[in-house]
């Protein structure tokens, strides 16, 4: 199998704090690779470095062989690396549909078109509607994003990521703040998306992670202490020691 993503000796410093500490990680094409770790392990920082929102201090990020560590976020998106945000990030005045249609529009090339109405352009709204349908939000397409309920905004966040036609999908806690029903729907959706996309998933919901992931990497203090199948991770003594033991006490918190 091809390595879609290779992370080599990645470092990220915030002043004296090592947020990412000599991280090495491979993600194989088509797999769902979960990244877990206690709070402050540097999971979101990792997603930010992969997506290009934050610059790595040193190290390489190879995407199908190309080092993308110095590229801007838009440049990486154009190569197919798309992220969702842990804290919902939407255009609140636009309808749900327009939010997703913008993602389609961005994929379709530049937007230096000044006169034609884009809001009813089916080249954009069609695929956008599909993406909304996939996450189960089609019936709320015309509602302003700012008026959607919290869980719905999380679903919209996912629809936008899907509409951007990613090769590599970076999901930062897609289920954060969702109710049980919505979480179930997202788990089902991710199961569907598996194989179609290469996915890096950061998630606190351990049931979901162990049910979905092909492989899991465990981050502690910005360093990867273990990578393996869910079974291997469950048995790994270092992981049990550093993380799962703590998780038993931590499981109830969001």
């Amino acid at each position, binding site marked *: 199998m091809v390595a879609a993503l290779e992370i080599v000796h990645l470092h990220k410093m915030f002043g004296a704090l090592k947020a990412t500490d000599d991280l090495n990680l491979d993600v194989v094409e088509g797999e769902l690779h979960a990244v877990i770790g206690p709070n402050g392990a540097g999971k979101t920082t990792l997603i930010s470095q992969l997506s290009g929102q934050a610059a790595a201090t040193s190290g390489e990020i190879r995407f199908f062989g190309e080092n993308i560590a110095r590229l801007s*976020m838009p440049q990486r998106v154009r190569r197919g690396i798309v992220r969702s945000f842990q804290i919902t990030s*939407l*255009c609140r005045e636009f309808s749900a549909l327009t939010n997703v249609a913008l993602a389609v529009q961005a994929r379709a090339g530049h*937007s230096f078109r000044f006169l034609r*109405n884009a809001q009813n352009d089916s080249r954009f709204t069609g695929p956008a509607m599909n993406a909304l349908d996939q996450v189960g939000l089609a019936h709320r397409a015309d509602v*302003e994003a700012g008026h959607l309920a919290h869980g719905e905004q999380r679903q919209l966040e996912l629809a936008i990521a899907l509409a951007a036609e990613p090769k590599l999908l970076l999901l930062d806690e897609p289920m954060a703040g969702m109710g049980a029903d919505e979480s179930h729907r997202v788990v089902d959706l991710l199961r569907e998306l598996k194989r179609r996309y290469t996915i890096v998933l950061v998630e606190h919901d351990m049931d979901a992670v162990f049910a979905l992931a092909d492989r899991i990497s465990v981050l502690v203090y910005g360093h990867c202490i273990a990578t393996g199948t869910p079974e291997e991770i469950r048995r790994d003594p270092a992981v049990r020691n550093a993380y799962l033991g703590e998780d038993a006490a931590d499981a109830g918190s969001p």
Partner: protein
Amino acid sequence: MLKKLLSLPIKHRLLILAGVAPLALLLAFAPFVFEVLEQPFYLRVASRILVFALAASSLNLVLGFGGMVSLGHAAFVGIGSYVVAILAWHASNEVPLSLGPFVIAGTTDGLVAWPVAILAAMLSACIIGAISLRTSGLYFIMITLAFAQMIYYYAVSLQQYGGDDGMRMRGRSILPGLDLSNRTTFYYFALASLALCLIFLFCLARSRFGLVISGIRQNETRMRALGIEPYPYQLTCFTISGAIAGFAGVLMVNLDSFVSPADLSMARSSELIAMILIGGVGSLWGPLLGAGFYILGQLGLGTLTTYWPLFFGPALIVIVLFARRGLVGLFVPGRS
């Protein structure tokens, strides 16, 4: 916008109609009304409102739609005015104008002078935007202000063109088939220009470009995460706005037959912002309503007292503090 309008409850639709219809009628028949009342002065005031509405609309594009708080927009308006006036000065004094290695003749021909003026404003906006948009927030505000001041002081230093006192234009620009020196013709020309501009902005706001610009204002990180680099879009928006501002300047110098550094001062830029804020930021009609309110308010207070700024200044403050969505907010129901 129409769709939004139709989706509103009937009561609000009537309210909007009640506000817009008389306004539209007034705009269309203003020359006749003032002719009958034998008040040509007020036709001039009406033309002035239209021209300022055009200038404020150009600023509204970057400020209201694009969220770029430019504090130096009067500079682009002033550049448009100065180019037309300078070309006319060289024509009437029969002195060629030398620009470095180039020597050109002056002209009062609108078909030549106007495009040059608009191009000059557009080019300035492009250069100033290219530098200013590297920054954001407070820095952007300050830098646009500083550039406008730079152009202001440059205009002051132009002794040949009146320096601080400004320069007079002997006649209005000459256009084929249109006599702009006729005040009714000028009024309708300004009205048509504003209407075209608003239609253009209306289309722009719904276009791919407009969605991106509005998206950048709402959430720049989101747009980057969609693969959209904001800079080229913002710069294009700024440049288009500069061109429209330049055109407003062309009309302004033709209306007043006069231009001075005050026309590109910080005070003028603030006035344009005030108009937008009074009318309603980011709304299509806001600049027109705001320009009308501002100019008529100043005029009305001016007839009551010579110390009108003593009252107009605080009035501005009160409006900003309490009418959050501007005059448009009175007609169109807000979001919660």
